[in-house]
């Protein structure tokens, strides 16, 4: 039996959907001009940029969403299953700050940081996918004529990750214009646009703006992704009490309305194109005005939003395993491990956020390896308790009698690796006086260094690399022209 946790009753989910459909009619949803014509030809009333979308159209669009799909690795193997109760994790994304392990200060993130994160995540089986984890401020500085303009920062990050990883990638574009370059890059890696369609390597996050607003950029993005057939992941992020109703149920309802609207825009443009019911909902901190990602209520929101998506039979995503602490400390560990467990028990298909501190403002690669241990524990937990043989215990007692010599049994040797998660030395189980540093941060630093030193960069064919470079150069030129 797979252990699971459920916050919402089926009745409450139906009520959430009922009210979400009501919201889509009144007050309606703000939409970008790019999607107005398409909505109108589907019979939707759009006035002053506000669309009133009827439940029947939404239901019709929901029916064409694939119930599941896969992301593939570079070798063409299925590596991430979006659908059912399968749970995967990827590092958090789009930080601009990196925690310096020497000074413990946050500094601007650079290309070398992104490479290091990718190298570490590549080695850890806990991460089924990579993410474009940090913004490379060195490469996209803007003033430097040699640097890529910041307008292609999204493309550049993907370029870096593709060169260093074979895993699937969770990414996203910063502008409507930037998306095509990213898709071209992925197609060059896959071999052809057709191959990329058949075996997608990446999923693109696309965000509405709370409350109930699909901006020009977001609308455009949905449209382009649907037409390209590239998997999209809606990341609706209501802040309960700030940009959404203060009650968790109210925020889940807003999330549902925003996501249903997004799915409608998307499926109208490309019926059958893969899309994920995702989100990064959080509560609104009534002292700081921030979004506390480590709060248990934030985890509850993510769980409840995913439950609504699962009720509709859709692939799901959430933002967990992050902390509000500015350091990699006990708070960071407690908050991240807790939400990793909760997300896994909910059966969320893709859980983003590992490695992040300071409420998503900063990334720590040391935290990433610690989070990997929490994730491994969560993954172990959801495997549940399995029956290892014909009998539970009597057959083994038949061999040992009362001697207690279980360590010698062939069953022990055969089964302990699947019964127990064997942690890396990041987790200290040694006796006092051992050589391991008593501080987990120090152990994490050592682990990061080890993983990086063992890392081997994938060898990409010369012609693929040349195609990559040509696309980046082309997009940089385009962005420079646009900036003039």
């Amino acid at each position, binding site marked *: 039996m797979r252990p699971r946790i459920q916050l919402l009753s089926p009745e409450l989910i139906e009520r959430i959907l009922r009210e979400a459909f009501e919201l889509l009619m009144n007050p309606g949803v703000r939409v970008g001009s790019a999607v107005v014509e398409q909505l109108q030809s589907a019979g939707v009333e759009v006035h002053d940029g506000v669309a009133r979308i009827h439940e029947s159209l939404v239901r019709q669009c929901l029916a064409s969403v694939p119930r599941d799909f896969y992301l593939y690795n570079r070798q063409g193997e299925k590596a991430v299953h979006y659908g059912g109760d399968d749970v995967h994790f990827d590092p958090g994304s*789009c930080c*601009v*700050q990196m925690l310096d392990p020497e000074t413990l200060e946050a500094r601007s993130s650079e290309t070398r940081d992104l490479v290091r994160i990718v190298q570490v995540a590549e080695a850890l089986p806990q991460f089924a996918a990579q993410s474009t984890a940090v913004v490379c401020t060195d490469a996209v500085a*803007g003033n430097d004529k040699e640097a890529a303009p910041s307008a292609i*920062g999204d493309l550049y990050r993907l370029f870096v990750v593709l060169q260093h990883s074979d895993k699937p990638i969770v990414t996203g574009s910063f502008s409507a214009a930037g998306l095509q370059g990213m898709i071209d890059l992925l197609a060059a890696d896959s071999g052809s646009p057709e191959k990329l369609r058949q075996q997608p390597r990446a999923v693109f996050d696309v965000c509405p703006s709370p409350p109930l607003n699909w901006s020009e950029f977001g609308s455009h993005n949905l449209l382009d992704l649907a037409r390209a057939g590239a998997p999209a992941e809606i990341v609706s992020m209501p802040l309960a009490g*700030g940009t959404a109703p203060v009650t968790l149920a109210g925020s889940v309802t807003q999330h549902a309305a925003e996501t249903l609207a997004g799915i409608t825009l998307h499926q109208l443009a490309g019926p059958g194109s893969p899309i994920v019911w995702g989100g990064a909902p959080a509560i609104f901190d009534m*002292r700081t*005005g*921030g979004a506390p990602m480590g709060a248990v209520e934030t985890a509850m929101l993510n769980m409840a939003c995913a439950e609504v998506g699962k009720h509709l039979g859709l692939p799901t995503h959430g933002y967990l395993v992050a902390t509000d602490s500015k350091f990699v400390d006990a708070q960071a560990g407690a908050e991240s491990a807790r939400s990793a467990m909760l997300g896994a028990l909910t059966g969320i298909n893709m859980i983003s956020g590992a490695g992040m501190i300071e409420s998503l*403002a900063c990334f720590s690669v040391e935290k990433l390896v610690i989070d990997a241990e929490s994730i491994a524990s969560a993954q172990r937990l959801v495997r549940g308790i399995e029956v290892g043989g014909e009998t539970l215990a009597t057959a083994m007692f038949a061999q040992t009698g009362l001697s207690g010599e279980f360590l010698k049994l062939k069953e022990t040797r055969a089964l302990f690796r699947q019964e127990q998660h064997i942690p890396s030395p990041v987790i200290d189980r040694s006796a006092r006086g051992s050589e391991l540093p008593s501080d987990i941060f120090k152990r994490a630093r050592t682990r990061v260094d080890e993983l990086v030193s063992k890392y081997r960069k994938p060898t990409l064919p010369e012609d693929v690399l040349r195609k990559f470079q040509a696309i980046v150069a082309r997009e940089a030129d385009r962005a420079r022209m646009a900036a003039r």
Partner: protein
Amino acid sequence: MPDQLFGAMLQSIVDGAPDKAAELARQALAEGVDPLEAVNCGFAVGITFAGDQFGCGQMFLPDLLASAEAMKAAISVLEPEMLKRGSQREALGKVVLGTARGDIHDIGKNLVATILSASGFQIFDLGTSVTPEQFVAKTKEVDADIVGVSALLTTTMAGQKAVIEALDRNGLRPRVKAIIGGAAVTSKWAAEIGADGYSRNAIDALELAKSLMSKTTAHA
């Protein structure tokens, strides 16, 4: 009697009760209390108290917003009489606010506007996704003391830099002070782009604005 009335005024602000605050303002006018005194000895004390309570964690943002609403209600009752008497409450300073180009997230900016306005600053709110040119034009038009640019997204933070550069190009600084805020903004970023200040939240923004005004006055 006024002492008791002032006490009730303070309480109406702390309670975040706009109806009560307006009623007390009308009562003050009926009793012939100087409206400016009603503000300075009653309502404004309440706002300061609320700010302090927020600062020490006893009050929260929704409480603070309610206090600001109550303040607004009281001022709108008293304002016509103040105008008549020519005893307009002197603005602490003129502040132009907006979110950076491309950024439509205005919750933080709105909080700052509310808190500064309730505390006596005159606010010119340009709304969301404001271009550097719009910031410059408004700053010139109203002869602003402070320009505040908010950016939530890491991708729109560059817009803050663009505003500061535009203010510089137009020769408006250092007289006009530029301040920035937003979830991803840090003091380091503020220093990097040459901002005159940054704050983590709306109450700190009030302190920042006040201190910048005292510097402005000292220079003048």
